[in-house]
């Protein structure tokens, strides 16, 4: 799949933002005054920046409001609802923290939980797609939630944040292992895609078109897989090992900031791989596999 920067930024930034908002909502920090303004601002900033990045992916964004209508069947529509509801419910909690209004924490807990639901709906947009075997797995939502929780714990300076960061590494390794086997396990080949196995072993004689098209650009992306092994090590080091180690050092706020920046960079690398390594079964018609 084509690793579009807008989609990578969307899932990485909004994942981190909603993860942090979950911790703020649940009252992990309970900041006051200016500190509250800055921290809630950071959470909202990341989440909203991610959502805005997503709109750059749209070919026809003027209809964006219609995306709220199909929540009964569409995970993308559910995500629209979950994200907007989360931001709306947490807004008074943020104001209460900033101005010391004493709003019951229960509201924050509801909003914080919804923030994680939002991350789950984002992951399900990908996990639901059977035509991309690497994504169609329960580890996809687990991985997205792990990133959100580890990023949120890092930003809110939890002492056990390093544990969550290391869990991210374990889940990444597991998702790569299952992901590498997923396409073969799904059992689709050029033979099943065309139904021509009933005759023998097919291979491409002539391409359907010599020029590029949307399908090839969007779903039969091959550039970048070459460096996959290297990028995986970079993702593990930046998203997990380095920030976990830094958080163990007595660096205070600067340590947290550095760890969060490194973790975000690692998240971007991991998300690049999430798209670039994902193979769509439509590639079979073009001889992308077997």
């Amino acid at each position: 799949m084509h690793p579009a920067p807008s989609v990578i930024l969307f899932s990485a930034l909004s994942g981190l933002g909603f993860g942090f908002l979950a911790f703020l909502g649940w009252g992990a920090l309970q900041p006051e005054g200016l500190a509250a303004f800055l921290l809630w601002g950071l959470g909202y900033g990341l989440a909203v920046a991610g959502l805005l990045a997503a709109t750059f992916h749209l070919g026809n964004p003027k209809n964006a409001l219609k995306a709220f209508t199909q929540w009964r069947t569409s995970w993308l529509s559910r995500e629209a609802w979950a994200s907007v509801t989360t931001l709306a419910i947490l807004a008074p909690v943020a104001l209460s923290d900033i101005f010391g209004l004493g709003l019951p924490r229960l509201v924050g807990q509801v909003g914080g939980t919804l923030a994680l639901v939002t991350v789950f709906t984002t992951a399900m947009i990908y996990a639901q797609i059977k035509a991309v075997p690497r994504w169609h797995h329960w580890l996809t939502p687990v991985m997205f939630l792990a990133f959100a929780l580890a990023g949120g714990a890092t930003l809110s300076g939890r002492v056990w944040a390093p544990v969550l960061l290391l869990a991210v590494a374990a889940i990444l390794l597991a998702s790569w292992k299952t992901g590498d086997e997923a396409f073969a396990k799904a059992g689709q080949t050029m033979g099943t895609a065309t139904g021509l196995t009933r005759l023998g072993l097919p291979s491409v004689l002539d391409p359907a078109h010599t020029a590029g098209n949307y399908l090839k650009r969007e779903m039969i992306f091959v550039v970048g897989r070459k460096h996959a092994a290297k990028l995986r090590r970079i993702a593990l080091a930046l998203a997990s090992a380095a920030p976990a180690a830094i958080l163990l050092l007595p660096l205070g706020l600067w340590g947290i900031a550095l760890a969060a920046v490194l973790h975000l960079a690692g998240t971007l690398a991991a998300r690049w791989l999430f798209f670039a390594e994902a193979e769509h079964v439509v590639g079979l018609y073009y001889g992308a596999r077997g």
Partner: protein
Amino acid sequence: MTALPGPTEKRLGLVIDLDTCVGCQACVTACKGWNDAGIGLSDQDPYGADPAGTFLNRVHSYQIAVPDGPAQVVNFPRSCLHCDTAPCVTVCPTGASYKRAEDGIVLVNEDACIGCGLCAWACPYGAREMDAAQGVMKKCTLCVDRIYNETLPEADREPACVRTCPTNARHFGDLADPESKVSKLVADRGGYDLMPEMGTRPTNKYLPPRKKGPGDASPLAPLLDVKATGIAGWLDRMLGKV
């Protein structure tokens, strides 16, 4: 609504005969021509160095290594299969992608499409292409603007690809009616679904190519075993020893 309508009374679709398709691409051209005039299918740099464009129908060509017979060439048209459980419909966040309850045709309401591309991701068959100029999703409409169009002569009230096919490799009809011409073709010829494990339950069916008999020996075969004589023969023997 992007909820699927459930079993539809009619299941309009295509039956594509891979035995008779010669890969002439006439269906590709006819489809592009009709739908370009209708919904609009843009091209980018069509006469330049790097042309690209939106098509609703593409014809691939495959060669097949047949274990106990001569190799075969199969031309393979690929377009929307108008699936019963179309994954492209349920993923749509706006309701732009929908399946008609009255005849099972899967369509895009371009006025509601946001161009997110998720439906194209959900389709295993590559049936949908985003129009780069319009930013909305395009797909086969089964020529819904032809098949019910009473201003057209009756013979033309079928999809443009079917109407134009010079070898009659494409058939249009109601696959829910067991007595229809297309249903009988499917029953007689063992029509099959593409990637049935994807759970999409396609309406369109493909008729398998008939197996060819053993190939005749080439009339040129005797020439392959030419024995050189004279000086050439002497050279052949001598050089063979060196």
